């Protein structure tokens, strides 16, 4: 063992000891002997132990001392990763699996409300949504839950949520980003053309900044007319100042050029969503330090905006140095949020290094969404979102043996599992 590792180990052990003292009542958990994809500076450890105390990881290393009272999960022959994150969903905002399904509550958008940027999904989130246990049993422990643009280029604010069993506290970061549309959809919303969308965006930003500088005059009715209502102006201010991410959907390569210019002109903090042709602008996006949240499973550009959609979008963006994260943004095939793991595997089949695909589901979204302190890698001090897989974490036939969210092991149960149990032994059905 290298000196560095020994030193690291002793640090880790001392952190463990401290944590034990701090949380003497909580049973610690040791996941031992697994192949650990830390996603942190330690890289991948072939045979390592992870210690969990309370809701946090306290140590990760190859020769850790397992506390006597720890509950041990032997992960021999298995893989361990951080809980995965889907970087764009409408999870917990609808009762079904996807938006637009007409099932029960649908709190991801309000086309008749008149609100745009001000819309915030936080009170629409339902931690008891039936889909949550189903998705987390696929190893997804975090997600962006975002509003859908209906009538305004700015759909409103989304949140980072965790999929654990702690209702009503599923929000990790409220107002994590303002969600917007450019590209073909933005053009449509803006009245028919991209340039109308660009004008509306510029006007909205200028109005928000002007409003922010002239609040008292605004209250006295002494400002010029604004293009947005008071709530939308207020909500747009932090995004217009570059303090909050604007996550913009766009597909065409030329849309990327616009977003790069927009970022430069106004100092905005832009993250691209979809980006089917982003690879054609990979170097420019990398230089502009604009991350891309993409669906690696799209390669039919039946929308003229995405003609050059390709399965190697992720690989080409990564090669150019663009920070990428994955989602299953639903064009052209609507699918469920858990599919994002399969899509990551598809990106690997088309040239993305395997560990990079895992990063795009863990540490990269942590970086993009500002979660690095608490999530994204298996490192001491982070929330214990940990998944033990029975094989390669990206393989189709692998599945999670154990899913921990904030240190809690998730029960092996969901509505899906109950349905299957009920009908597994036909014709015996017990209602």
């Amino acid at each position, binding site marked *: 063992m290298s000196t560095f590792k020994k030193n690291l180990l002793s640090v880790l052990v001392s952190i463990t000891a401290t944590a034990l003292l701090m949380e003497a009542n909580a049973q610690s958990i040791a996941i031992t002997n697994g192949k650990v994809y830390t996603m942190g500076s330690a890289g991948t450890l072939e045979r390592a132990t992870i210690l969990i105390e309370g809701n946090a990881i306290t140590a990760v290393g190859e020769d850790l001392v397992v506390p006597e009272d720890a509950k041990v999960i032997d992960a021999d022959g298995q893989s361990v990763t951080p809980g995965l994150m889907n970087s764009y969903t409408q999870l917990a905002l609808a009762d079904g699996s996807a938006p637009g399904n007409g099932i029960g509550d649908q709190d991801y958008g309000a086309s008749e409300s008149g609100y745009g940027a001000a819309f915030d999904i936080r009170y629409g989130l339902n931690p008891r949504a039936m889909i949550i246990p189903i998705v987390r049993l696929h190893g997804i422990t975090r997600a962006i839950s975002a509003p859908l643009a209906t009538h305004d280029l700015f759909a409103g604010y989304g949140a980072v949520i965790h999929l654990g069993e702690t209702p009503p506290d599923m929000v990790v970061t409220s107002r994590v980003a303002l969600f917007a549309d450019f590209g073909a959809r933005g053009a449509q919303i803006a009245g028919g053309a991209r340039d109308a969308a660009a004008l509306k965006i510029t006007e909205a930003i200028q109005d928000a900044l002007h409003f922010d500088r002239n609040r008292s005059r605004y209250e006295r009715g002494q400002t010029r007319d604004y293009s947005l209502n008071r709530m939308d102006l207020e909500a747009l201010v932090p995004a217009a100042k570059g303090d909050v991410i604007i996550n913009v959907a766009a597909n065409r390569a030329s849309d990327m050029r616009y977003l790069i210019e927009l970022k430069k002109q106004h100092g905005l903090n832009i993250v691209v969503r979809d980006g089917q042709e982003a690879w054609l602008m990979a170097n420019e996006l990398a230089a502009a330090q604009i991350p891309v949240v993409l669906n690696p499973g799209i390669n039919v*550009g*039946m929308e003229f905006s995405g003609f050059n959609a390709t*399965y*190697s979008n992720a690989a080409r963006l990564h090669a150019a140095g663009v920070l990428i994260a994955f989602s299953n943004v639903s064009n052209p095939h*609507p699918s469920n949020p858990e*599919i994002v793991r399969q899509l990551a595997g598809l990106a690997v089949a088309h040239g993305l290094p395997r560990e990079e695909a895992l990063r795009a589901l863990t540490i990269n979204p942590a970086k993009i969404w500002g979660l690095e302190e608490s999530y994204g890698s298996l490192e001491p001090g982070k929330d214990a979102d940990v998944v033990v897989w029975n094989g390669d974490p990206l393989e189709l*036939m692998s599945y999670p043996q154990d899913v921990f969210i904030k240190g809690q092991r998730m029960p092996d149960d969901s509505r*899906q599992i109950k349905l299957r149990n009920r009908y597994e032994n036909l014709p015996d059905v017990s209602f």
Partner: protein
Amino acid sequence: MYTHTTQNIKTVSKLLSVTSLLLTPLSIQAQSDGQTLLPYKKDYYPSTYKALASEPVAITNATILDGAGRQIDNGTLLMEDGKITAIGANIRVPEGMRIFDGTDKWVTPGIIDIHTHVGVSNRQHPSLSDGNEMTGPIQARLWVEHSLWPQHPGFARALAGGVTTMQVLPGSGNLIGGRSIIIKNVPARTMQGMKFPDAPYGLKMACGENPKRAYGGMGSAPATRMANVAGYRQAFIEAAEYKRDWEDYLVKIEDGEDVRPPTRDLGMDTLAAVLDDDIFVNNHCYRADELAVMMDLAKEMGFKITAFHHTIEAYKVADLLAENDVCAVMWSDWWGYKLEALDGVLENIALVEKAGACAIAHSDSEAVMQRMNQEIAKAMAAGNRIGLNISRAEAIRWITSNPARAMRIDDKVGSLEVDKQADVVIWTTDPFSVYALAEHVFIDGAHIYDRNDPSKQPQSDYELGIVERGDHQ
């Protein structure tokens, strides 16, 4: 009452060859050819498909899943003149064959997708949305092949995913949506150029939410599931009368009577052919209770439902499906996008297989169609997780021989057996891995796709000059 006129002779001669009638005893004619000369039995838009040029090919040292339930390790597959000529573990390769070394590679039959709308439906382009005629719930008169646009890029993408045969269906907005078409997945200028020779037509029917929502929303029937069922029953009652009218007519012709043929009705043509079991029924139907109603309805009306599609709740009535010999066409894990799809379970396909019913995986999607091997891998894994012990050799049937059987082309494709059409995929690795890609695809023995050679990756007119060949990968 009918009287003899020149006009009527012309009508009859269009229908039945007068000369052949004169040269052959009438009774024999009616029995042998008369049936096939019923107007609703004819293919008026016949296939012009011709197999592409091929050379004799030997794939050696490969792991072969033959689609008929066998896995052959270190296997060899020979094809010549468009047909499979040998398959097995100890096959001598004749001289003069082009050899594809299959070491570390896997071989399967060409994938068959029983449910697509490629070429007829597109969400992004209203001008290309030609699969759902939402102007009346009974559209048996429609033939989807009259909408089929061979330049849709989805065909070539599916080929890169190993799909060699597909059934293109009308949409599900109508109770009866029209005839399907089965095609060979080759680039072609015309629909006829892709049409699978000697394959039957299918019929698309739809249960549940879609028809009732579409028409109920417009204030017309059907607005409820009971009106859906009334709609099918009424249509088949009329079809039975139509069929009887034509059969009566044939008998009268046979007896030498000079009678006027019944009035043609395109929709009734198709439904009569269903009653004769010349056209197989594809019934979009989700809920277990509706599946049971439809199986009874088919008995009542005297036709057979070959396959239920999108059968999210198949696992609840897998025993009934087995008993009635109806296939269930399913996804591995797509569910919850509407209320009738809420009860999806990951073990659906595996549980149907276990019940002894015919299990089929489908795409209904240009994206999923390119990775159907992955879909069955997920479904198999879910089944094995609860101890169903399904092998790869069994699971591959869900996208090969089982759909071939449902589509009534299992004498031609769907398994790697001697004398069958040489529709074959060579995979870079185990096709049940997410990292596997179709490397070579053969259709009727012709090497039509090569992942490493963009010039062997067909490209539609639609993308020509806009997208670099091969860039979609």
